[in-house]
């Protein structure tokens, strides 16, 4: 309903046609067909998906452990040393950015025409911003190795946990809520 309403405007229709031309161009490209397993290696798509799941585990896993520590669980962990797990999260983030972009190149219409995809990206963006904030304001401060962590940070830890949960739900729902699989 909303879509047809917007598309009634000539500019929006033009924009829609432009996007579709872009999707067709991308989906016809050799990288896109490779990701979908249509050319070359038939296991490309499953393997990319596996990396995306492993990256999720380590990125969200480290983030949740940090959130737990901020909330006062496992207080025997000095925060400045817990920081040494951040490279694991960063590596996982790189793995997921690369695998995520590959999946996007494989099925651009599927993701980009689904509002849930933007919710997922928004949640991840906010959760990553929060992780960065924890890194500079909490984990880098030796005072918090043993000292009490501010209430404000605890609220952020709860928000971050909810954001990662929402990102996971949104991500999983991408397989169930897409409106259009491909443009070609």
């Amino acid at each position, binding site marked *: 309903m909303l879509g047809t309403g917007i598309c009634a405007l000539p500019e929006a229709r033009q924009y829609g046609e432009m996007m579709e031309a872009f999707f067709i161009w991308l989906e016809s490209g050799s990288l896109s067909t490779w990701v979908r397993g249509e050319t070359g290696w038939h296991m490309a798509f*499953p393997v990319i*998906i*596996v990396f995306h*799941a*492993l990256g*999720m*585990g*380590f990125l*969200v*896993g*480290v*983030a*949740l*452990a940090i959130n*737990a520590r901020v909330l006062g*669980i*496992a*207080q*025997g*962990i*000095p925060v400045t*040393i*817990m920081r*040494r*797990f951040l490279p*694991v999260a960063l590596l996982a983030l790189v793995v997921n950015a690369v695998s995520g972009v590959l999946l996007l190149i494989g099925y651009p219409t599927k993701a980009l025409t689904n509002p849930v995809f933007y919710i997922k990206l928004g949640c991840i963006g906010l959760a990553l911003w929060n992780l960065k904030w924890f890194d500079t304001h909490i984990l880098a401060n030796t005072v918090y190795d043993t000292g009490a962590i501010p209430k404000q940070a605890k609220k952020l830890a709860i928000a971050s946990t909810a954001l*990662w*949960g929402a990102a*996971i*739900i949104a*991500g*999983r*729902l991408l*397989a*169930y809520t897409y409106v259009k699989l491909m443009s070609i």
Partner: protein
Amino acid sequence: MERNPTLQALSDWLESTWLGNAFIDQGYWSWPMAESLHFMGLCLLVGSVGLVDLRMLGMARGIPLSAIHRLIPFGVAGFLLNIMTGSLFVLGDADQYIFNDAFRFKLLFLAIAGINMLFFYSTAFRDAKMLGPEAHMPLKVKLMAGISLACWIGVITAGRLITFYRP
């Protein structure tokens, strides 16, 4: 390939159970919601057991093993969550799992992880958690941590591949 009649009977029986049918009868969203919970459980496991393994392998020395081990209850919670949601998947659509090579590998990795864990807690944990924060773990402990981490990575890998190996 011809199916093993015993496994076929098991599969049919699992699918006929009340719980499996009740799960499917919840409608279209029950499956994706259970999958989302399954992924959250995965993250809890990696964020606790995985980090303890990494610490034992030598990362983030300075954290006492006894301190980081406080995260383990979250891993146990994640594991229980995944046993529950995982059981719903198997009961709801047993045929897709019982005859699935990826699922069999997942169970294999789970079994090795379980045996390894029992071994670790019965032979090495008591001494290891007494070590100082800067301690290097004995080779035996590092080996068990490596096996654990590799098995959980194997569980996730095989688990994510299940959908591509449907019979």
